[in-house]
């Protein structure tokens, strides 16, 4: 019988610990499929964040290194410079990347580090119990904004894809979502393109992925998908923000 479906080799057999409807597992899979299809698993080193995906090293079937909260881009930079023929990806949440790790991500992009950043934007700090992040939407209720985020107090949600695309060093910056099959396919294509940009040595690449945290949003998995469409996409437009072509 012809095999039509299999688990990517780039994922281990470990059962993941993510909540039902969480986007982390799905995004792991998309990355792993890209690694398989590009046949780069044995050349890939991933950097884990601190956040709900802190245990990602148990799930990816490649070398993984744990970074301190927010410091993944600095770690990836060092490995990539030492071993330029390897593929380096960081896997970071919005707290990790846009809050405590803001300096590292901006500078890695400005320096044009030839690494790929998978940025999982679920609008809050999932792991610590759903506190407000720089990406939390205005009016959104979190455990540290019990009546909703207010611009007067907490400022405005940060648009990381737009921000980083203004850096010369950024070669590929794209924002996608994983709330429906079409967007999931687009996300996979974006991840692959980011890896290809890295392969060609064009510079820094990042895919920001609008993701669900049903647990801390207080929604069931289906409603969480709808919440992405209704609330996140209008503020965080999808699409490619920077595509540097080969010279």
């Amino acid at each position, binding site marked *: 019988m012809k095999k039509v479906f299999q688990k990517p080799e780039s994922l281990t057999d470990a059962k993941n610990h993510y909540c039902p409807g969480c986007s982390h597992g799905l995004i792991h899979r998309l990355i792993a499929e890209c690694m398989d299809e590009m046949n780069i698993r044995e050349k890939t080193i991933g950097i884990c964040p601190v956040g709900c995906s802190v245990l990602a090293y148990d799930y990816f079937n490649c070398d993984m290194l744990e970074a301190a909260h927010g410091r993944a881009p600095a770690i990836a930079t060092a490995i990539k410079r030492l071993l330029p023929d390897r593929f380096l990806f960081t896997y970071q949440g919005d707290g990790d990347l846009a*809050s405590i790790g*803001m300096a590292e991500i901006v500078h890695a992009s400005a320096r044009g580090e030839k690494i790929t950043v998978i940025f999982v934007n679920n609008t809050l700090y999932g792991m610590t119990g759903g*506190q*407000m992040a720089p990406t939390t939407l205005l009016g959104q209720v979190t455990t540290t*904004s*019990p009546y909703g985020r207010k611009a007067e107090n907490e400022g405005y949600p940060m648009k990381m894809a737009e921000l980083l695309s203004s850096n010369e060093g950024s070669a590929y910056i794209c924002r996608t979502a994983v709330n429906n099959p079409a967007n999931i396919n687009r996300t996979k294509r974006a991840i692959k393109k980011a890896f290809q940009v890295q392969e060609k040595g064009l510079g820094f690449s990042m895919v920001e992925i609008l993701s669900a945290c049903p647990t801390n949003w207080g929604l069931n998995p289906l409603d969480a998908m709808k919440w992405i469409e209704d609330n996140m996409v209008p503020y965080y437009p999808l699409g490619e923000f920077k595509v540097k072509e080969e010279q």
Partner: protein
Amino acid sequence: MSNRLSGNEAVAYAMKQMNPDVMGAFPITPSTEIPEYFAQYVADGEVNTEYVTVESEHSSMSVCIAAQAAGARTVSATSSCGLALMYELLYVAASCRLPITLACVNRALSGPININNDHSDSMGARDTGWVQIYAENNQEAYDNFLMAMPIGETPSVRLPVMTCMDGFITSHAVENIELLETDAVRKFIGEYNPENYLLKKENPLAVGPYDVSAYYMEHKVQEAEAMKAAKARILEVAAEFEKISGRSYGLFEEYRMEDAELALVLIGSSAGTAKAAVDKLREDGVKAGLVKIRVFRPFPGKELAQALANTRAVAVMDKSEGFSANGGPLFAETRSALYDLKERPYLIDIVYGLGGRDVKTEDIEKVFGRLADIAVTGEIGPVYTHMGQRSKEDIA
């Protein structure tokens, strides 16, 4: 008034009663609930606090420093790597003599990354110039936090105060505790009227300026003197606190130490376990006792030496590995304190409970067993060992 609260909620509630002017907030397990509870108080208008959600602990401590320099009362809460990320600013807060109050919910430091309890975070910060007070249980966590401001804000002290409780064991366990009435708390902590602060137009001020070699050392001596002065002030505040609460506190607690021959010295929630072990041994006729250190900075060296003077063998139990190759930090302090005694007890160090490794009454009894042997034979054996680990032979 009696209430069932977790350690975190108890501290958050203390903060609410104190109504600080500013809180610098950034979440980290297991202290996260403190800023969460407090966010609700702010949102419900129960406090007048400016609640600043920042992007890291480096910034939350910076917020506290700046606000305190401007004459405000400030608080924050953190754990583990969060405290480590504050490290640079901890020194700045202390040397600028800003009496910030910080709740440290003790958690192991990376790496390896671990969210459970030990004392490596606050022990790493023991020489930053902060007063450090440790709690055994929820009641003490609440009480210590209430006492922190009157200690730190006294003109002779003017130092930041870190109150510590054990992550999860204390921070998340729910216990019945006695709360003070808010009016009594407000009266107890009084108004904060610092002599100097930013934006006082008659007296423009630079806070934290560059200090040249000709002055730096004098400033450090002043800071050291302030830490010495804190000891008396801590006892004064405890006496005032006893008047309104009926609960009495010292620099440390002596448990069944009157005639103790064998004793433990330790910090934090393990004291509860150790007390149970002491009681059990006492029933068997063993003269066991316990000293639970409450105040680690300033270190009560003289007083501790007195408390241990008549014992025959003492085990210091360190809930952090100091990597000095010479025992943990509590051991170093205790051994140094005993040096001036004419006749010293035998002394060993046992590092235990790292990264949440459990300690049971039987473990503590084993330690007393070793002390009994030492007292009889005079043979100490290895001075510094690790308890409850599997990689080497376990010698209590």
